[in-house]
């Protein structure tokens, strides 16, 4: 179908077929795709572009999974491996909260970490309880589906019971990580140890059914084709039709190890991760996404995922420049100030490790949008 026909279809409120989305990916006309995506975004969210003041904590980088695209994880005992105790986690949050005293402060903490071989389910329950005890107002967004699956195996509880226990201990919502790409063959090449796409979706459905809102991600720009991207988004759209539990979709551009930064770190990383180079999956700098592809993917997500309220341009992954441009291509959220982010930066992301509130506001305004500081459920926070 031609791009103009697809445009008409979108504007008449009809749902795009996977073929339509594929045609958009194959189209060279980024201006039309972007313009229509922006229009749809404005119909859904006005000129609002959301951001949040949040804090990331990665309790440990020790992980039994060791995905091949991940530069963050370590094995136990390996150089650079670390683990934070609950006390340390609470203390870290306290220091950050202190810095924000007198303002609304950061209202959300985002906690994801490795699958630690020794820690029991009780550790995570206690971590949530301790955080909530010390910071009752703070929204705790934590644990990807991969971690939830691991907890369920650790505890011997059903998915539903695992989630309910976590929720009762203080879990408010879940991020969308670990989705990667659902296609089994590609997934098997990039992260064979990780839960399957079907399992990821099952966990998200269970979370939604337990009343826990989540996000959804897609890691693209590695070995997948456009068809795989569309297939991935289709699965998300179907689940969202059933549960309505997804808040935002976040396309994540794969970071190949290019640029000077990573080349510097390369020797170190090769030593630290002997599995990487021996595998069939070799990150190739020329395989990384282009800025044009990043913007197109945002725009197509906005058009195809007609039941998602928010499309997030995660600036840590995209870089603040592409993330800003994404606001004109259908995205309505830049995520947050993100104090302390480790996972993407271990893979050599060139973005700074934090943006100030004023920098975020400037990026949004220069994109012609209205900055809205939000809480974890996209309610405006009084400035």
């Amino acid at each position, binding site marked *: 179908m031609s791009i103009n026909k697809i445009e008409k279809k979108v504007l008449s409120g009809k749902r795009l077929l996977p073929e339509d989305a594929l045609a958009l990916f194959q189209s060279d006309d980024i201006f039309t795709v972007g*313009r229509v995506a922006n229009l749809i975004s404005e119909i859904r969210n006005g000129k609002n572009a959301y951001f949040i003041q949040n804090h990331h904590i990665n309790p440990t980088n020790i992980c039994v999974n060791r995905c091949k695209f991940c530069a963050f994880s370590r094995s136990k005992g390996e150089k650079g491996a670390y683990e934070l105790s609950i006390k340390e986690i609470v203390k870290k949050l306290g220091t950050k909260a202190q810095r924000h005293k007198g303002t609304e402060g950061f209202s959300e903490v985002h906690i994801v970490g490795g699958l630690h071989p020794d820690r029991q389910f009780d550790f995570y329950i206690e971590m949530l309880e301790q955080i909530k005890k010390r910071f009752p107002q703070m929204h705790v967004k934590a644990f990807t589906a991969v971690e939830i699956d691991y907890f369920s195996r650790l505890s011997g509880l059903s998915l539903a019971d695992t989630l309910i226990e976590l929720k009762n201990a203080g879990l408010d919502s879940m991020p969308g990580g670990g989705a990667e790409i659902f296609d089994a063959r590609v997934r098997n090449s990039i992260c064979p140890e990780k839960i399957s796409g079907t399992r990821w979706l099952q966990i998200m459905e269970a979370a939604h059914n337990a009343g826990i809102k989540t996000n959804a991600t897609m890691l693209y720009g590695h070995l997948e084709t456009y068809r795989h991207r569309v297939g991935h988004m289709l699965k998300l759209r179907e689940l969202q039709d059933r549960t309505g539990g997804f808040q935002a979709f976040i396309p994540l551009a794969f970071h190949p190890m290019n*640029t000077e930064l990573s080349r510097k770190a390369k020797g170190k990383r090769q030593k630290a991760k002997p599995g990487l180079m021996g595998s069939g999956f070799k990150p190739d700098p020329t395989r990384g996404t282009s800025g044009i*592809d990043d*913007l197109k993917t945002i725009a197509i997500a906005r058009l195809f995922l007609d039941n998602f309220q928010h499309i997030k341009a995660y600036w840590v992954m995209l870089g603040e420049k*592409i993330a800003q441009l994404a606001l004109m291509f259908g995205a309505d959220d830049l995520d947050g100030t993100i104090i302390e982010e480790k996972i993407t930066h271990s893979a050599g992301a060139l973005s700074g490790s934090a943006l100030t509130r004023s920098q975020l506001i*400037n990026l949004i305004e220069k*994109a012609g949008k209205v900055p809205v500081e939000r809480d974890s459920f996209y309610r405006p926070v009084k400035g």
Partner: protein
Amino acid sequence: MKRLSRKEALTLLKSADLLGLGAIADKVRRKLHPEGVVTFIIDRNINYTNVCINKCKFCAFYRDEDSPEAYVLGNRKLFNKIKETIALGGTQILIQGGLHPELGIEYYVDLLKSIKSRFPVHVHGFSPPEVCYMADKAGRSIKQTLETLKEAGLDSIPGGGAEILSDRIREQISPKKIGKDRWLEVMEQAHRIGMKTTATMMFGSIETPEDIIEHLDAIRRLQDKTGGFTAFIPWSFQPLNTELGVKSEELRVKKRQRNFKLQNSRTLNSELHTATAADYLRVLALSRIYLDNVPNLQASWVTQGLKPAQVALRFGANDFGSTMIEENVVAAAGVKYRVSIEDITGAIRSAGFKPAQRDMYYNIIKKRR
């Protein structure tokens, strides 16, 4: 295609929808360069000295003559740098430095002759402020100076030192640097004696949209007269380690204290913040549309990074500039996107274009896979 008036350009710069502007610039680019090729040049920036009496407020590179970090590059180092450049497939060196009070025209003539007698390399060198300084010190006219340099081996002149061609702004950000008229005069004289040059623009400091239009218009007018500009290269001010960057930081605090609201978000006056990617693409796209007589437009990956530079290829740019085997001036302002030739060709390809190595005249030397 009809030519854009200044007034129309100003309106577009201030209020056009960015995607709409990009779509027009993309069409213009396609018309001028229908082959889908994006060119680049393999060259090296060699800065023969960092001593400069101009001390521009946006510059993080210059040093005083008595600074422990002051240097003048010796011949051995210079020749080695050129050898390395040629070994990497380079065809050109860009020689620029500061206005060093101890270096006279003889120094430059010797420099050029010593290079040209040893290496088959294109020398792109000495921006207008340097040329004027040489002329003034030697008591010669600009034309005489250029002829001397050309005879000694200078091939073409880089478009640096243009900053913003608006004296109102130059008085504030580079009060000791040559004014708009002299910059244009050097370029005109160079074109007249058969030398090609480029033109640059540094925006995103304290200029207004009107100043940007004044700049573009000056370039277009001169190009109508001479046709000597091969390319236009806009890039955005990088504030770190510069006097101006620090000042605007102070200004930002002050404005906040007075409860100043971020109102004029759509104007380009960046007293509060330097240019964002959206500002950059806006200026780039408008440049493509306004400068209908300048054949090539460069994307500045050095200041923007590779991904935004790829996007720039759809907002009017058709060239990726230099591979920058060495770059010191922007790096001094804290921005370092060092990349390899493979990174450049890979970026061009994944943006949907065919990479090709070119010379200074935009002749294609080698198609790249």
